[in-house]
């Protein structure tokens, strides 16, 4: 009921004592900051800070030459500097040594809060989409933060791809074999061509690709000189162990020359009927396909898959 002045003063100079006093007389720091509005706000703020939100770009890239156009820069966050960043922010309100003692006493609580906040940023950005996450990823997101400092790695990408490929996708992995997906902490467009990604832990490889569900017909762009677009064939049915949909080698079925079916030379509009017929004929000759060749089979041949680029990182 009554605080003794001596006891209080002693505590205010000794982090351990302060913590003991607080734990005996006050509520304990909540395991889940979500239950406490103040801690929630603090965790949120610290989480964003540690994910470098608001950090001037020129502090990240001291000279624009260090991130030229069409470049990718991979980085590794120094956790000590991240702590300094947090310390700098927290030190503003401190004016007496006892406040410092107080912060020291609760440093581990603050660390916990900031890491909790870092994770929550992702689900906050995703909003309701979080429900569509892969169960594994969801599990990783909701897991409690690891109690010790952990590594944060990431990359800066400055490229036309960033703006050109709408819905650009990046998957990062803790291994080169791309079997252990890494948890994404932040992915932001810092500018029209600049993409900034941060991951929990060490990322060993990542893959950049288009948005996977983009369904479209596509043809192969001409390689080298000449302006001819081509299209390779796919098996329509199982043939000699080649599953339907797999690629027919160009040597068995030479790619169809698309330009030959243009309505108007160079007009880039194809006579679909003629093309379909030609394809049916070619398949008949090359792999002896004699089944129907309806719109379905045509689509199978024409649908284009997504592009992907893989990076492997050697630290």
């Amino acid at each position, binding site marked *: *009921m009554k605080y003794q*002045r001596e006891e209080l003063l002693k505590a205010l100079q000794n982090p351990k004592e302060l913590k003991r006093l607080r734990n005996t007389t006050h509520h304990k720091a909540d395991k889940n900051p979500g239950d406490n509005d103040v801690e929630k706000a603090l965790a949120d703020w610290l989480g964003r800070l540690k994910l470098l*939100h608001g950090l*001037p*770009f*020129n502090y990240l890239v*001291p000279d624009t030459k260090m991130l030229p156009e069409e470049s990718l820069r991979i980085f590794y966050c120094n956790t000590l500097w991240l702590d300094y960043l947090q310390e700098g922010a927290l030190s*503003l309100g401190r*004016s007496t*040594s006892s406040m410092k003692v107080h912060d020291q006493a609760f440093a581990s609580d603050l660390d916990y809060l900031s890491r909790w906040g870092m994770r929550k940023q992702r689900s906050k950005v995703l909003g309701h989409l979080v429900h569509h996450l892969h169960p594994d990823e969801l599990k990783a997101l909701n897991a409690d933060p690891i109690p010790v400092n952990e590594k944060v790695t990431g990359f800066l990408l400055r490229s036309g791809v960033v703006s050109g490929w709408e819905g650009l996708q990046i998957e990062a992995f803790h291994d080169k074999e791309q079997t252990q997906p890494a948890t994404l902490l932040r992915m932001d467009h810092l500018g029209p061509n600049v993409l900034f990604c941060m991951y929990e832990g060490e990322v060993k490889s990542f893959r950049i690709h288009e948005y996977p569900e983009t369904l479209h017909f596509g043809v192969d762009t001409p390689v080298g000189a000449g302006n001819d677009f081509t299209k390779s064939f796919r098996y329509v049915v199982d043939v000699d162990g080649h599953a339907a949909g797999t690629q027919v080698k160009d040597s068995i079925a030479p790619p169809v020359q698309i330009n030959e079916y243009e309505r108007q030379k160079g007009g880039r509009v194809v006579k679909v009927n003629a093309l379909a017929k030609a394809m049916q004929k070619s398949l008949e000759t090359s792999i002896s396909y004699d089944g129907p060749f309806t719109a379905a089979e045509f689509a199978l041949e024409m649908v284009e898959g997504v592009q992907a680029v893989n990076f492997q990182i050697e630290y």
Partner: protein
Amino acid sequence: MNSQKPFKLATDGLGLIVPMNVEALCVNNDEVEYVPAPYNFSRLPNADDPSIPNLSNVVMTSGLVNMQIGVHLHWALPDGLTKGVSPQSSDSSLQFPQTPDRWLINRVFTDISDPNNPVNTVKSWVIESNYVSVEKPERETTTVPFKTDDDSAPQYRYLGRVQEFETWREQFLAREANPELKAADTDNYVPGLSAVGYGSPEFAASYANCKSVFGFYDQHKDLQNLGVDGADYLLSYQVIGWYHDVINDPVTQLPIEMAPEPFDRLLDKITVPADKDTIRKYYTRNTTDNPYVLRPDLDSPTRLILIRIFTEADYGFLTDTLNRNAWSLPSGTKLEGLQVTHTLITGTVGPVLWNTTREYPQMQDETISIAIGNTASEALSALIADLTGNQELPFVESILNALQLGLLKDIGEPDHINRYEQLQLDMHASSYANLDGGGLWQVSLIPENDKDQGSDEVNLPPDLADEINNLNLIQSDLDRTEAEIATQRSEIFMDWYRFMQVLRRGPLDPDHNMQPRDMAEFIQDEIESMQQLIQKNETERRPDIAERVAWIISNLPQEYQLEMVQGPRYYEPEEPVALFQGASIKPPQRYGGDGRYMANQTLLCRLSTQVITTLTIPGNQIGNPAVIVLNRDNTPQLPGDLPLDYGNQVHSLFTENSLLNPTVVAALCINNGSTLEYSALREIFLTNLREFLSPSIPEMIPNAEVELIGNRVAEADFKFFKELYIPDGPDYVLKVPLSSLEDDKINRLKYIFISASMAWGVKLPYTGGIAPSEIYFVKWDENPWLPFSFSWEISFAPFAAIESTQAFSASYDPEFIIKTFKLGDVGFVYKGDVPILQETQAHSNTSFMTPHAEQNFQEQIKKFIDAQKDSPFDKELKAILESMKDFPPILSQSFNGFNSDMIMRNEVLQLDIKDPVHSMFSGFTEEVRQEVGPMTQTSPSMGSYYNPIRTGLMRIDKLTIIDAFGRKVTIDKPRKIIVAQGLITEGLPANYVYLPPRILQPARLQFRWLAAKNNAIEMNTHPATTPICGWLLANHLDNSLVLYTNAGAALGSLTVSENLMNVIWQGVPGGPGFGLNLYDYFESGPGKDVNASFKKLVISLFNDGQASYLQAFLRANDLTFSLVQPENFKQLGSNAVLMGSPIAVAQARLDMETAGMPAYNQSWEAMEREVNDSQPKTDNGFTKVKFPIRLGSMEQVNDGLLGYFKNNDYSHYYALHTDQPSDQVTIPDETNILLSLERPSNSELVTLLFDPRGSIHATSGVFPVKEINIPPDVFADALETLRLTFLTTPILTNSAKLAFPVPAQDGGQWTWLENDLDKWSEASEIAGIDDKATMDYTTQEIKEGWLVLTKGTQK
């Protein structure tokens, strides 16, 4: 006068029937001893008694008396008639309402000795309360002082006369028939009578005081004539009072003041112009806003004229009467157009069982528990804590105290860790009464303009500040001398009191060596010196004040006003309070409890048309074959008609009482054919009556009856009814269970049912009117116990004894307090265990009991438990509740007169200053009378002990509770006394009370801010008088201190060098004085105009560059700041976070003073020295006793004080806390600041360093803790404009354009300041920047400089 015929109030019209309480005491043993009336004025001397001084101690009675055998009645006047009023707008004294002066006492004796034919016999008497006689009347009455011009005539009269009804009627009629006789008789009556009689609050409340005035003695011999000796006499009494002179009647009372609007409305209604003028003549007002006040002391004819005019203008006399007295009428009574002409006040008691052989039990003391505390609430807490057994629940007493002080809900909050301290503080403060401390002038915005413009926008002319202050200085001189004059008047009276004793050499006079002539000269000298003070006040100070006030008002901007507010108050310690608890103690509710049956706390009255006239008993209900109808014709009759215009109404009241009185009506039923036994019948009527007076609340009421209720009662009441009862088919049903209805709601429902005559449980219906209030009926079971006054005898062992016999030789050791006590959290604690002191003083007194409305504790705790579900005190509170089941009633009473007795003053009734014996001193006495005026509250008590500082051990030797009839319960050497925490100390023996030091006369601790500009003046509300000298901003993390002027302009900084050896001074970066050394800076540089005290402070801290002082200073503040958690820290803007915590530097003055002159020693010896040896009056050195004052409070987290300097000496810092004291920085010891009450004062000037968001406490032990703070609007501006400079190195930024992130600031602006070797770069703006990738920043560069935050406009 106008030409109409003389106005006579319409009579026989309408009476207002007001109920009152009547109690009866049977005395059949004339050996039992009773306490007599306190004064016997028949001892007053006249011109023929030169040996008796005309002083109050002559008329005071002592000892005990016997009471005559018979039945004694005493009635309690309705509360409305016992309360004095004074007009709010003038300072005229209390006016008490007139009481009825004629009383009809009707006794019905029901003789049931023949069970088949019981007989009701009536006998009546009339009391004339205002009858006075020189001769002692046949029946015992009381004596009163009587003013007469004839000094040789008796100076007293006997008051009151009892006559048998027939005798009185005859004489009355004879007088009425013969105007000469009537005129001759007028002198035998005093014109008015009030509840306080000759000026004593207990006059009407104690039977011994007002026998035959408000009491009646039914004589043994009369009773014997009734002739049923040996058996119980069944007696019923009814008392009916009226006003002989209608001018005194409550319903004709003119309003003593009227607000302007109703007054104008009244004038509009008056048609005769002359009447308007008359009204304007007698109702006047000082200023246009004030109400109109009736001129006091108007004679009867004038009043009658005014009443006539008011009546003709339809003035609501009835409404006025009801409101003034807190009386009400049955719901639905139409007041419009009613002209009530008179008041009848009536009460009954019965059946009184009178029997000469019966044993009337006496009060016993065994079951009474006694608790003592500083206040009634403290004592109550202690009592309850004692009941709960406090081993298991150690905080019960504190919790209950907190509950009573309204602090409990906060005490468990973690954010309010200071609540426990607050509780101690509040408890300590509640043991003081505060008194007017004089006036304080201040300017303020006129409220209407407050909304339109910010209060900080307007600048007052600067010279006004000084003027206001000068005005306040003169005002405080005036107030101080006025208080002195008041105490001097009282001293003169007490000196004259002793002079009279010497002059008359009366039996009370001890041996002495003074000559009356010398004494008179001495007193005349006193008068002369007092006259000088008065003269100076009247001819100099008052005109001076008036002139200054006029000047200030004429120079004030029009949106401002000059007003006078309450100055710092004086404090006077309360006397300890005793609490009595026992099953046999019933707190009497006959005074102050009139409203107890009504939800709106009023007394339910009736009109004379609402009196019950008939009782109808249907056939076969009570063994009666036929219907019995009882009314005025077949009930007991008065011995004759009452020769009054409204005599008929009095008879109706008598009839009503017969009908409602079970004792009487049971006999009547047998007479009218009932075959039941008398006792059975009486029981039936008792139940019937009970249900009639207090109808039970039905769960269900048929619609038809609800409709009746709706027709009969007022709209608001019916609305209330329908909130509780809801329609359900053919009935209305009660919405909530009956058990959960609050008392107030039940009372209001009962009022509605009574008003609608809906008494469902009444089988034998009373008709013709409405049930009277329960107050009207007193059911007599046994002799009542009506505690009324309290006398105490205690032994007191003072820690420092000043015997009256050592008037001049002994005096207080000035170190007495600091040697004996240490200052605890709020009060003094005895050092070590208290000793058991052998030498004791005896003190005693008697005081009038003021009924204390005991709060219903169970209710309060239950409510608290319900409201605070998770209270940490649940367990305790529930235990308390449990232990309070069947809690016996409690009476509380303070030891009135205790404090006065300890400074040798006697609080008793004082006689007018007069000497009926003619002598050479007659003129002198008359002079004294004129000089003393009303200051005759206390007389000197020469034989008492002198303890102006009350501290010691108290033991209660004897407590006596006395009842209204003079019976008493004496508790001799109480076996166990429960003592509250506040009166206990380490090692206190059981049954002793520890009285910590208190200054017994009103005194105060002054703790006032001084204006920074000129510390001879005190801070007032003028903005120019800010007390803040400057600001310090400490960075405890890098050992530096930034200095600001009080307007917020930066001066520079002091930093401890890295090797901790030196202090580095640096002028403000970018400022003109950058680079100057400290001395030059403040002597001739930019700092030369800085506040002198602040300058001294800075130079002292610099300490010639030696770091030890600054380092210790910073270290101490760093620690202390940790404990400062001001409550209003959130009120200030976000800057506070950035700056950390600015420390304000301000000066204040501490002083201690008594109100008026010290309470001097009143012993004979002291006076002898004064008169014979021309010695000054002695206070035995108590004004030289030093009291320690502690500033700041580490326990109160709201306290902002870090430390202080004394007397403008800045070489030593008194820090509230430090773990590394040094030569120059120490924690002040307890005696660091010592003050005494001595004049001229030895005040102390302190320079305080504090967090302005907190307050500063001054703890003195003998006064409530004094808390001062600086209003935020005084310092907020300066704080907002503090120019903050942050050394920022290094920083990475675009070399072309300065851009880096800075904190968001409301209204503030960040700039960047650099020093390029020889010049300061202009502070340039900083562009905002964020994490967006803009590729235009290359190249970047690293800079060093200062971030500067400027907020608001720099002054």
